[in-house]
């Protein structure tokens, strides 16, 4: 009996901690990977680690998906159904929308309409949408200058963000700056480059200018995190605060 009373009191005293969920929707550059694909790493994987205990990151991004196939396969519907007030939806598509030869191809008009759908339906549930331009591919011109690889679809994301006043993270631009800083050769470290025989998951070796290594994924996650701060989103208040000891 005394225990029951104590329990009753405590349930009033302890404020119920409202957990914020950050949903990630997007493609392979963001997705969690199966172990057999390691060390390929989506930037959503390290992104999990940077928040305090009031925030849960739910990475729904999937390899190969465009806005269209993400919706058609019924991947968006359960996100909307679960959204609660104050949740976030981080939206990064484009890699698979923009390629006409891919089954996932989505016309510019349809891409725009799908982004608007994500934004509107998130807001209907009082959740906060954040639009993210597609992260850069590793492509340099002969003079060693980074090339834009998503010109049209990145602009479409920016247009929707401006028109609907959606917080925007220009990851395409920021990741290009990072690639430029690394340069044509060293930027390979950011991507899933493996020599033959180096890694059991890729016995023949691997050269990939789209998908990241652990290093690249973490750097991209750090960019997104830093932009969340720059945008002054409430979410920035829940980035883990660590009191690092000064080195003697």
């Amino acid at each position, binding site marked *: 009996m005394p225990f029951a009373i104590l329990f009753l009191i405590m349930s009033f005293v302890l404020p119920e901690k409202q957990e914020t969920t950050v949903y990630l929707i997007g493609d392979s550059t963001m997705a969690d990977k199966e*172990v*057999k694909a*390691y*060390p390929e790493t989506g930037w959503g994987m*390290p992104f*999990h*680690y*940077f928040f305090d205990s009031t925030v849960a990151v739910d990475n729904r991004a999937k390899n190969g998906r465009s806005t269209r196939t993400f919706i058609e396969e019924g991947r968006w519907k359960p996100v909307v159904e679960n959204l609660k007030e104050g949740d976030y939806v981080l939206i990064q598509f484009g890699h698979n929308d923009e390629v006409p030869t891919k089954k996932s191809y989505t016309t510019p008009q349809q891409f725009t309409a799908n982004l608007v759908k994500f934004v509107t339906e998130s807001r209907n549930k009082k959740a906060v949408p954040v639009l993210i331009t597609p992260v850069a591919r590793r492509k340099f011109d002969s003079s060693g200058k980074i090339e834009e690889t998503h010109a049209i679809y990145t602009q479409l994301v920016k247009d929707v963000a401006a028109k609907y006043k959606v917080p925007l993270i220009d990851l395409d631009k920021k990741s290009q700056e990072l690639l430029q800083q690394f340069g044509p050769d*060293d930027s390979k*470290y950011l991507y899933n480059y493996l020599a033959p*025989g*180096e*890694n*059991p*998951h*890729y*016995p023949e070796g691997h050269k990939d200018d789209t998908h990241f*290594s*652990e*290093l690249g994924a*973490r750097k991209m996650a*750090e960019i997104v*995190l*830093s932009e969340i701060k720059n945008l002054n989103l409430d979410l920035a208040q829940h*980035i*883990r*605060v*660590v*009191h*690092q000891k*000064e*080195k003697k």
Partner: protein
Amino acid sequence: MIKPGLKKALFVCLLGLVAFTLPIRKHTTIWMIGDSTMCQYDSSRFPLTGWGMPFAEYFDSSVTIKNEARGGRSTRTFIGENRWQKVADNLSAGDYVFIQFGHNDEAKNYPDRYTPPEDYRKNLMKFITQLREKKALPVLITPVSRRKFDSSGNAIETHEVYSKIVREVAAQMNVPLIDLDAMSLKLLQRFGEKNSTLLFMQLLPGENPDYPLGIHDNTHFNAYGARHIAELILQGINDLHLELSDRIFKKS
């Protein structure tokens, strides 16, 4: 058209064949004993990663990894804190014990960890003698290199005395040796002085929320570096033609 009875008989025959063709692997455990360069870390310290963490991702389901390595431990303190006894008590015949110490044994400026060379040798021999009594299989590993370059850009040996002792014990007691010190030194040389920072816990102030003041560490690996070290160990297992090599993930 095959009669149903015949079909069934064929199936049973086939099943019998498959049972002989597929090797039935006995389960094995890899026990990992060592220091902070090998150990598990909580995600609160990410991107700090011991090489034992990615190492565990490259075996088939017949292998269990038990990473008992702990930060700051030398052979002496690992034994003193009863960590070794706990491993020894739980060993089964056919288990592997991967042994990588040295960073803290050799640290004279940390008297609480320091182990003089001859004690280090004795402790390694103790591990091997005791685990062999349990019919377990030792693998000795020289301490992974620290990141240190000379003024002309050559990666410098950082464990000279203690790595040599590991090699000597391996030769004397006929223990499979992975010379990780030498292998990782080559890796650092391949990356070069500047790019080898990408393998270590090197972060600018403000770059990563877990290290707001930044960090400049030439001993501990980030996720990218730990994976490269794990790849060297897998390479070492293959080079030694250990039975364990057959249990490394194979792409079908």
